[in-house]
């Protein structure tokens, strides 16, 4: 089965590449297109109105939700003009979501042929969202977590903590400095550790394009002597390799925490801001990973075990090992009029 996955730059592309790799491992032929850095770095509307898009067995619109309707319209119009039914179109959130974030994401994708979700938790919420509406019978499929590489050896990870930074969080620009000072305090109190601040690309959700420098920028802009020597700011492009060498990953709510868990890292989610819908914290409420970072004396005193509760993980799609299987089955059963 041949698929064309349309992505956009930043976090979606990284996530879509991970999904594409797993689909290929499941025997599918996959091309990622629609933005710079993709296999097919062509404008998505041009790609969707071209011949290639009509020759595949599935088109995935794995972009920010607000972009989906226009892309879908382009594809269907092009197919209609070409006199062909076109392939089924599927779409879904590029990262696990919950509550308001999931609802606002899915509401933009309802006109596609198949909605892709990560796990049983998202599906349960989606069914309630669509209950009784004209979309109640919309086909849904669970693909699991898109990032499921094999765990990496731990031997060179000891003493490396990674803070997965997100654009736009905290959402008050004045909150950047207090967060950085907290991280600096932890680093200073933990001389045997390295604390790496790893920016993660924008997701295209509410945090996309948010104002204010990141913690890494603040470190680079200010005198180096102000910061502990074991507090380091990294480049966004390094996120995958950085996570691979982390003993523990800390974050407010970055989806890269799932990648970290898949790599065998411990994880902590920052609960100091409280459970905020805008920050996607409700997703992590049942994880058992949320702690108050301000209560930590040092990285030597990190709460154990740093592993999520099993049932919560299953609800995120952890046990779906091969996304190709359910996707192939779902696409095969769809018939385009």
């Amino acid at each position: 089965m041949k698929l064309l996955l349309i992505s956009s730059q930043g976090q979606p592309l990284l996530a879509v590449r991970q999904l594409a790799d797993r689909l290929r491992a499941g025997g599918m032929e996959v091309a990622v297109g629609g933005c710079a850095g993709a296999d097919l770095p062509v404008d998505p509307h041009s790609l969707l109105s071209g011949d290639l898009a009509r020759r595949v067995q599935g088109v995935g619109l794995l972009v920010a939700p607000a972009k989906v309707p226009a892309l879908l319209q382009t594809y269907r119009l092009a197919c209609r003009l070409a006199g062909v039914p076109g392939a089924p179109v599927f779409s879904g959130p590029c990262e696990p979501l919950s509550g308001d974030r999931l609802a606002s994401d899915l509401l933009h994708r309802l006109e596609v042929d198949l909605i892709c979700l990560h796990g049983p938790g998202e599906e349960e919420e989606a069914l309630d969202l669509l209950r009784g509406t004209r979309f109640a019978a919309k086909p849904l499929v669970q693909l699991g977590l898109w990032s499921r590489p094999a765990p990496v050896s731990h031997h060179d990870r000891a003493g490396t903590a990674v803070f997965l930074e997100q654009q736009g969080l905290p959402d008050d620009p004045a909150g950047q400095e207090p967060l950085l000072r907290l991280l600096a305090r932890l680093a200073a109190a933990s001389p045997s550790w390295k604390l790496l601040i790893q920016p993660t690309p924008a997701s295209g959700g509410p945090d996309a394009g948010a104002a204010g420098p990141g913690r890494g920028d603040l470190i680079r802009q200010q005198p180096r002597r102000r910061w502990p020597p074991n507090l380091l700011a990294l480049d966004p492009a390094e996120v995958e390799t950085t996570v691979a060498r982390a003993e523990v990953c800390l974050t407010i709510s970055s989806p890269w925490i799932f990648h970290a868990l898949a790599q065998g890292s411990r994880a902590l989610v920052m609960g100091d801001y409280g459970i905020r819908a805008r920050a996607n914290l409700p997703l992590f409420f049942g994880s058992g990973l949320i702690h108050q970072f301000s209560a930590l004396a040092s990285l030597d005193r990190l709460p154990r075990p740093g592993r999520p509760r099993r049932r919560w993980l299953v609800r995120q799609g952890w046990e779906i090992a091969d996304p190709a299987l359910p996707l192939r089955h779902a696409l095969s059963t769809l018939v385009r009029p």
Partner: protein
Amino acid sequence: MSLSILLVADSDSQLLYVEALSRNWPGDAARATINVVPRDGTPPALLERIRSHARIWHQPLATLLGDPRLDRFDAVGVFLAGSKLAEFRTAYHQRATREGWRAAPLFCGFNGVVLEQFDEAITWRLGYDLICLNGPRDQARMERLLRDTPFAAQPSVLTGLRRQWTVEPAGMDRQRRLVFAEQVAMPAPAAERRRMVRLLAGLAQRCPDWEILIRPRVAPDEATFHLHETHISQTLQQELGGRCPANLSLSDAPLAGLLASSLLFGTVSSTAFFDALDLGCRPLVMGDFGLANGYGTAVFEASGMVRSFAELRDLDAELAGPGPDPDWLEWMGHSDRFSAAALLEALQALAAAPRPTMPQLRHPGFVVNAADLSANQLRRSAEALIRQGDHAGAASLLEMAQLQRPSHRNIARRLAALRGEPRFLRRLWLLLSPRYRG
């Protein structure tokens, strides 16, 4: 047994809810005292209505929590914003423990249809003896959030969305009028509010034998929980000016009265949809802003009553057609099965039962908003630790408070004082820095 119940409310939407709650208790099952937290702009008409069936107090929360009569109630219902809910609960229990009296069951709930931030709101309400939910939809959401967590057993009760039990509809002698209930934040952008006005004007022009009446959420001089910049009357004037159709107008008359005397109701996503049903008025939902608009229209999609107001031409046909889907109504909580009677039953059972131990809200790996984690609670706890000499503990709490309120100067000053070195100077900085006295 007739229960004596204290209801505490702040904003006018919270007052509307507690008014409806207390009016709809069956018979003499309960006697209500409603504490209206003093604030500018509370509608006088609302206070008058409340006064007709309940005792009214006007006390700020701090005063109320110190009122010597607080221990005389069989139950206390608290309808405040999130952090205040948590603070009230903590302060109430601390006083009961300090003075040695049995704390009454505390309950809380929501003002109406919960369009957004439900999960967040539930985490502010955990620890209350009862959380009032509208219906099965909210029950399913809460169960999903709390499943497999230490809070899974949080008690709740379904009190429904019917608020107008005792108001008799005006019968068939109703005016050919569509009442449109403006919501301050739905939509919020000025351009979309102007569009909304144009949509209603267009409807008025296409249906000249109907009256289209806009009922503003607030009068121009009233405060409300949601602040806005331009009142709808100004938007109407600015957008239409002299071109306003003769059958389009505004009215500040009480919404219940308008609904009881009108045939149709319109809204983007107001809870008044259900009030309209109670009062025999057919509701319609303005769907012109789409579903993915953040205005809550999607919640009403399954009702079957979402319409494009730009395309509406025959309001008489809307009257003749089917009403809201009954399955959806039950799902939302608009059903005879759910009412304040369920709350009273639950409160009577709690009043008769041995007082349970205070629920533990702190569990490793879990953070709930209700666990004394608001900035003010953190500051208060920090001052207590400072008095005990635990500067490190106090600094930890203020560090968290500063994360939540990064621009708050007094938090920053107090935290800087706690971190001052050497220690003897730290005591000086603490003396000089502003102490939180809330």
